[in-house]
């Protein structure tokens, strides 16, 4: 039995807004499962990030819709879960950017007791998530990963232009 029920009080709720919301944004088709993407080149970029920076366990390229595009994880973590978590992080960052008028999402890092998860914006549609161990040189990651994200963005843009 919850506390609210036992005291007879109702918890405050956010009231539904009047139906004057703008129509939902037209979204481009998901990147996930697109056979025209240059997977080999994407894989090379992800492998480069993993080998260049000691302490990177793996990288995941996902869509902002939370669906997996490519990954090079080798441990037990599920890449589909990480793509979803990256999109969740992006969602929070995007809302903060909107509320504070700070512009688009760029990067978010979560540090836990035994490691890091950093999420970088690749394009309007894609995110790069990097899993690092606790001892990673996170400043070096932050210097290196935006370059990888920019190259991934160029690869995705080329694929979209060709399609």
């Amino acid at each position, binding site marked *: 039995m919850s506390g609210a029920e036992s005291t007879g009080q109702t918890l405050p709720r956010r009231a539904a807004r009047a139906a004057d919301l703008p129509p939902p944004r037209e979204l481009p088709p998901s990147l996930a499962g697109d056979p025209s993407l240059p997977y080999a080149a994407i894989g090379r970029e992800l492998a480069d990030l993993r080998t260049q920076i*000691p302490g990177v366990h793996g990288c995941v390229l996902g869509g902002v819709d939370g669906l997996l595009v490519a990954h090079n994880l080798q441990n037990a973590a599920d890449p589909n879960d990480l793509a979803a978590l990256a999109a969740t992080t992006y969602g929070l960052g995007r809302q903060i950017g909107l509320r504070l008028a700070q512009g688009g999402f760029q990067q978010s890092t979560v540090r836990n007791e035994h490691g890091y998860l950093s999420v970088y914006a690749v394009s309007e549609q894609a995110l790069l998530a990097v899993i690092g161990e606790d001892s990673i*040189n*996170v*400043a*070096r990651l932050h*210097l290196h990963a935006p370059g990888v994200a920019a190259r991934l963005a160029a690869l995705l843009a080329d694929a979209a232009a060709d399609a």
Partner: protein
Amino acid sequence: MSNLDAALKSAMSIDGAIGAALVDYTSGMTLGVAGGTGEIDLTVAAAGNTDVVRAKMRTIEMLDLKDEIEDILITLGTQYHLIRPLTSRTGKGLFLYLMVSKSRTNLALARHQLRSIEETLEL
């Protein structure tokens, strides 16, 4: 002016100083930078030299020397780079990084001055 700004300012007053930074070697991030030039990005230098400090600390540990780094000197063709980990309790995990021009500095004096800056730096 904070103690950190004052320390970086006095590091930059060492003859021939090009740039100075206080760096956290657990993350590679800088707590403060001073100087530097258009070509020299001190945040890049900090991240790179974090790996230098970590490698040396690991080596000392592997050799079971039960000692610590007092300072590290890196000699380039035209520059000296000095790395000095902080010894105070509040400075644990940090190091001072100083780049000086080889032709315009007195290395012994620069090293001595960096030591006194490190000793007086309280965070």
